[in-house]
């Protein structure tokens, strides 16, 4: 029934940071990837299920589907009444959630180990038999809920729509990273039951999913249970892989958004590179050198010395088919974003010319290494070990990619940092958004 692919043994060495998480990967006949990770330290299990679909699979005019769909998966399936998914898991003392981004949708349960079968039953029922229970009424209700989610987390949040404007300007209208995962109010209103059904049939299939089960488990028994509950769900058409698509920005776009905010904020954005590339690691470390701690370049200049910014964050956000690098800073009262932008630009030019010091890079690497260990503390939930195993499996095909991943960071040199700063953080070819208090456009960057 199962094809044995890989078996690894837990070794934890502290001398050199080596992260080896014990796991076993198999693939069911229907294509479902199964990863088992045994850990008996407390009597809980984590069931973590990834579908390799996110808003990156959406088409123009149909934005917000992958996420709306995530909501529909909590609305009951053939043998599970609306509301029962939550009820049964919580009645067992468990907890659960789901989330959607551009590239994947994940669902998880963490519960006492003696209730594992319940979670497998629920996950398999909605993978195999969701459409039997799908109704217009449920769709309408969840569409309203998602519209409220959008109001709460975007429209009624200060600076909440900045990411929308940035993505729309970094990416052309046909690019699936052009729109927010939550979609637009208009597209959500237009979503039909047929659209939702079609989406499910295409992407919510065992051969597009990866199931990671971890914690207080007996791997042999769990394999049988997974076969029992998931084995009968038929394989479907292969989902075509998305190709990398990093558009080119040849000029600078300066944009201004007036918002209900007290302080102006600048967002400087460049296109960068896809995840799991070497340059991603170098860009992550550069971001850390720019804004990580009190001694970081931009924090020290803007917040500490000149005191013109309230905060500054630099981050590289690499995803499956493209990526972007951003520097965001909130101005102190009365400070114009132009002033902040000038400081950022001249510091970037300095790094492009002179590079960074060995010490700066070492601090950033040390912090990255420590984080690799700290993030192993939780078994389940977003970012827990089972989520990480699934992430590596879905995107690089190897759940145990921890050390290779860490090595990408270890091998970055100061000359790499200088190189990626020059290559990606171009003087011409960025989107600069100024979010200013209503009526205060004079505070914008340009």
């Amino acid at each position: 029934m199962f094809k044995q692919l890989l078996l690894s043994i837990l070794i934890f060495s502290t001398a050199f940071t080596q992260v080896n998480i014990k796991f076993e990967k198999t693939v069911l006949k229907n294509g479902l990837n199964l990863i088992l990770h045994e850990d008996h330290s407390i009597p809980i299990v984590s069931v973590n299920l990834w579908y390799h679909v996110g808003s990156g699979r959406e088409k123009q005019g149909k934005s917000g589907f992958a996420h709306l769909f995530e909501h529909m998966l909590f609305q009951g399936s053939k043998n599970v009444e609306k509301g029962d998914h939550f009820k049964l898991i919580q009645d067992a003392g468990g907890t659960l959630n789901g989330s959607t981004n551009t590239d994947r949708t994940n669902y998880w349960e963490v519960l006492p180990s003696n209730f594992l079968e319940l979670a497998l039953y629920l996950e398999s029922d909605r993978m195999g038999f969701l459409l039997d229970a799908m109704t217009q009424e449920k769709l309408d209700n969840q569409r309203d809920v998602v519209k409220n989610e959008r109001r709460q987390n975007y429209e009624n949040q200060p600076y909440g729509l900045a990411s929308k404007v940035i993505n729309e300007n970094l990416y052309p209208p046909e690019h699936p990273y052009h729109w927010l995962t939550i979609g637009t109010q208009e597209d959500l209103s237009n979503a039909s039951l047929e659209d939702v059904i079609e989406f499910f049939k295409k992407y919510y299939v065992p051969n597009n999913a990866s199931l990671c089960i971890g914690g207080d488990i007996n791997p042999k028994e769990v394999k049988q249970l997974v076969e029992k509950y998931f084995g009968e769900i038929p394989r479907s058409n292969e989902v075509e892989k998305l190709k990398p698509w990093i558009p080119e920005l040849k000029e600078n776009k300066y944009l201004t958004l007036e918002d209900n905010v007290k302080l102006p904020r600048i967002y400087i954005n460049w296109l960068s590179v896809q995840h799991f590339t070497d340059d991603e690691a170098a860009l992550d470390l550069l971001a850390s050198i720019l804004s990580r701690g009190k001694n970081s370049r931009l924090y020290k200049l803007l917040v500490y010395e000149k005191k013109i910014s309230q905060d500054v964050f630099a981050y590289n956000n690499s995803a499956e088919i493209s990526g972007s690098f951003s520097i965001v800073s909130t101005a102190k009262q009365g400070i114009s974003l132009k002033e902040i932008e000038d400081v950022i630009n001249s510091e970037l030019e300095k790094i492009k010319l002179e590079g960074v010091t060995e010490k700066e890079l070492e601090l950033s690497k040390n912090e990255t290494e420590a984080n690799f260990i700290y993030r192993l503390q939780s078994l389940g939930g977003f970012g827990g070990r089972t989520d990480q195993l699934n992430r590596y499996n879905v995107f690089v095909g190897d759940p145990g990619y921890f050390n290779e991943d860490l090595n990408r960071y270890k091998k970055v040199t100061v000359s790499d940092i200088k190189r990626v700063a020059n290559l990606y953080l171009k003087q011409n070819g960025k989107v600069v958004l100024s979010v200013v208090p209503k009526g205060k456009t004079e505070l914008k960057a340009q």
Partner: protein
Amino acid sequence: MKYLKYFLLLILFMSNLFSQIDRTNKPKEGKTPIFKFPKIQSFALSNGLQVKLVEYNQLPIIQMQFVFGAGSAYDPVDKSGAFNLLVRLLDAGTKSRSIFDIADEFEYLGTRFSASTSHDASFISILTLKKHFERSLSITADILQNSIFPDSEFHRVKDEVITSLLQQKDRADVTANKIFSKVVYAADHPYGKPVEGTEASLSSIDVNDLRELYKKYFVPRGAVLIVVGDIKRNELKKQLEKQLADWKNSDFKIPDIPNVQADFKPGIFIVDKPGAPQSQIRVGCLAVERNNPDYFALEVMNMILGGNFNSRINWNLREQKGYTYGARSGFTYRKKLGTFNAGGGFKSSVTDSCVSELLNEIQKMKESDISEEELKFAKNSILLSFPRSFETPAQIATQLANLVIYNLPENYFDEYLSRIKNISIKDVRAVSEKYLNPEKMSIVVVGDYELIKNSLEDLNFGKVQLLDPDGNPLN
């Protein structure tokens, strides 16, 4: 042989065909696994510092948490925000290290240092790799004994806090919470004052105030150190004695927080947010202190009312009506009286319906018994989820910190489970009647005043009053 092979294949095929499982019956749980609460080892250092250790060997890391028995409720009169400034400045320089020395050393080690305060307590947390324990402890020891609160850092951080207060006003949810506290507590009680202070209170704080508080409160006898990590008791004790031996006590004795006097302000309090697509609503009142014996019944009751996804409030307002992304209710427990409130963010056009639905659900809980099924669900979800809150070192440390702050015994976790198990429908009804009085609740709404004021007035729930974002009455 050949035929046998085909026969076997046929059997296999048929069994696959008929292997469709019966999904109409939900699987039964297996045998309940045994969970033991982590073993707490307690000892004291020669300077009086109490230490509680839980050994944890899954990862080569150590979590330390210093819990100090005083927080912003002890801010000097008219200087609210002092404790918050103090904790933010703890790592801003010592007699021998500059702010950048400290930041660089911690970053080099990959150690995470953070300090925070609540009304009831203050915290210093350090998460370190085992191999860097000694060095991380040595920097921490320096911070505990030799912080100097440099003038320039004080002015910079104070200005940052004042700016962040301004930023908070942009956020409807944060504003709603702050205004709610201000409305339910009497004006002179520290619980009604924000931990971060106000622009006025911050401007009256001098750097010497912080130095004085540091000397008085940040002493070994005023703290408990919780350690969860890959270290043995003897090794820990040796290191702590070595590095904290010179940490001095003060003669100061921490006083009690004043009792909370009821000061009910009826009505609907609105903070205007023109054009807001949602209204943030809080409906609630003063409730109980953490050590109140009604705590257990209240936890069960709230689980049903608004403490989980399937709770009455969320089911009604999200899953039935689609008015919100999430609605909830909950208690805040403190050394002295905490609060109860229900609320969330709701579509602006239905603000009045949401206020009355929240009040209806509260009234229903008070007027009638919960069902057997609800009781079972609530108790199960509390009891069976308990082991999950002892997974990571930080979670274990938080559990222990609560014992410390609220003076609960070390066998409390077992007691907690048995107390919850014993709660009956009657107990839930009794606490509902005692604490949930809709006519004694205050209502706070942060939303579009012009759009919502008339319909809220029509609810006839007392006067609709407009407040500024600091909670002061307008018009």
